[in-house]
């Protein structure tokens, strides 16, 4: 945009002053615009912080009301969620969330790292420039689309394959989620692997390594921090994903004992029940507490990423 004021040399400003006698000259206008924009930028970031603080305070405040009527241990450890009979054990949702996330990572991490390695190390340039935009596009597909495909294509397929009569459950949800986070993980790992200096590889080849040895012993360890960041980013998406999960998991408050048991996780239970609860009830508070828990988990994961990055910068 305009030239910043402080970059004008004294000579120039004298020149400006001598050519125009008006008080509202170019200098003053530039200064005013700069100040206005500074204010606008500051306002933007403060507004965001304010909203974030409001979210945390509101969710937390409502959530912790749960413990007026409920003990900590019942909420976190009990496996019995039956709000209509005053049982609010969220333990099963927490465990289900962990199972689902674990299963999702188990499926998606090996595949997405393989994609990343192929893209960064093996693929010819024309293929790279084709596959990268495709992965970027996959990241942007709305989750409801994945959920709908899961419900109409994947579940009937699972039903035919296994002979189950319903087919909803952990396996379906994990498969849909894997597909969703796969592009995220592989794109970021791809960048991390590409960023590994070429001299590392050349040194390894010079010492007589095979291509596979270079990839597994040099490149992946060197890019490991970036890959872990990618996995955690994928994980946050998997934990917080709601719509796609709701459509394929079966939404029944019970522990997922098999891959095909209809069950429910933190997010899907909140979205299923929040519109049907009374405002001032333990049920409502418990749902808010579950939302707060999700918030806490993502904050924790983000902190881990920051920590890893800081360490990486120091070592480099």
């Amino acid at each position, binding site marked *: *945009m*305009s030239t910043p004021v402080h970059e004008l040399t004294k000579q120039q400003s004298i020149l400006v002053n001598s050519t125009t006698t008006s008080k509202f000259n170019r200098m003053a206008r530039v200064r005013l*615009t700069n100040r206005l924009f500074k204010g606008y930028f500051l306002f933007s970031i403060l507004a965001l912080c304010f909203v974030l603080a409001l979210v945390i305070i509101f969710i937390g405040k409502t959530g912790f009301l749960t413990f007026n009527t409920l003990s900590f241990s019942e909420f976190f450890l009990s496996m019995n969620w039956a*709000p*209509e009979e005053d049982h609010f054990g969220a333990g099963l949702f927490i465990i289900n969330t962990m199972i689902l996330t674990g299963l999702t990572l188990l499926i998606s991490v090996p595949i997405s790292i393989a994609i990343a390695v192929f893209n960064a190390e093996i693929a010819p340039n024309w293929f790279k420039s084709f596959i990268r935009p495709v992965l970027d596009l996959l990241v942007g597909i709305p989750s409801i689309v994945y959920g709908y495909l899961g*419900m*109409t294509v994947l*579940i*009937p397929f699972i*039903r035919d394959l296994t002979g189950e*009569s*319903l*087919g*909803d459950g952990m396996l379906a949800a994990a498969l849909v989620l894997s597909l969703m986070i796969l592009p995220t993980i592989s794109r970021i790992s791809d960048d991390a692997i590409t960023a590994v200096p070429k001299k590392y590889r050349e040194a390894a080849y010079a010492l007589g390594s095979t291509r596979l040895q270079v990839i597994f012993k040099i490149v992946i360890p060197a890019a490991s921090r970036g890959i872990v960041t990618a996995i955690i980013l994928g994980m946050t998406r998997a934990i917080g994903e709601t719509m796609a999960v*709701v*459509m394929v998991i*079966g*939404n*029944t*408050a*019970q522990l997922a*004992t098999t891959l*095909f*048991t*209809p069950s429910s996780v933190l997010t899907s239970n909140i*979205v*299923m*029940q929040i*519109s*049907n*609860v*009374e*405002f001032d009830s333990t049920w409502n508070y418990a749902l808010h507490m579950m939302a707060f828990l999700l918030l806490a988990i993502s904050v924790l994961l983000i902190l881990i990423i920051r920590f890893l990055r800081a360490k990486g910068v120091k070592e480099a």
Partner: protein
Amino acid sequence: MKLFRRFSILTLATMFVLTSAVAGSASAASSLKGKITINGSTALLPLTLQAAKEFQKLNPKVSFAASGKGSVTGPQAVSKGIADIGACDWDASTDVPGFKAFDGQVANKVAVIPFATVVNNNVKVDSLTTEQLKGIYSGKITNWKDVGGDDADIVVITRAFGSGTRVNYQAKALGGGDIVKKSKNYKEVASSGDMKTAVSTTPNAIGYIDLVYVNSDLKALKFNGVAATTDNVINGKYKIWSYGYYMTKGQPTGATKAFIEYVQSSKFQTTTVKKMKFIPLSAMK
């Protein structure tokens, strides 16, 4: 900079035009004015929106803010003073399973909503009795052959606890009986649309839904031998239906009163209500 200035001029111009437009529409002649906020059942929302549109033509000074969520949010919003009208699929001034009565609220009937028991098209059974349905939903009957169908597991699909459809179905079709969670072959869905998709795509599934959603994708069962049709609801043979209510805090007044009267008027009931596949109140006398 130039771009910025141009934008701000554009914004100002737009705002000016909008303000004058709003002022213009409000200046048309009508005695009633005010804002009516309506909250609650999604089942009644299409009817509410249509009614608001027609009512606004007659009374341009009345504005509407209507939104749909769960049934129970309707009377709740009314008791908190957020909404003037709470749309609800049951009479919230009385106790129903799971929800206490809302004190001091008046239930205004606005339409009749029929519900149907639906099964996947592959199910051979055509009719179920109250006892059989009770058995299926309480988990005692788990195979279609026990109710005259093929040898196949019954997949129970139900709405989440608190849904207006579920409250009514439990009361009318299951005689107040429980819906028991089973470990397998049991699934909860969030809305009528999801219910339709789930039942029509899952073989051997049974569920329940507003009658307006029933089409050739799934099969509506007879209840105690009576087909689920609007005619059978009107002549009193088919029992699974309920009134849709507009809950208000005390007796409605002003614009709210006029609006409810408009919805209950025979002109609106015989045209729009019928067109939207609800049953007019007058037909039930």
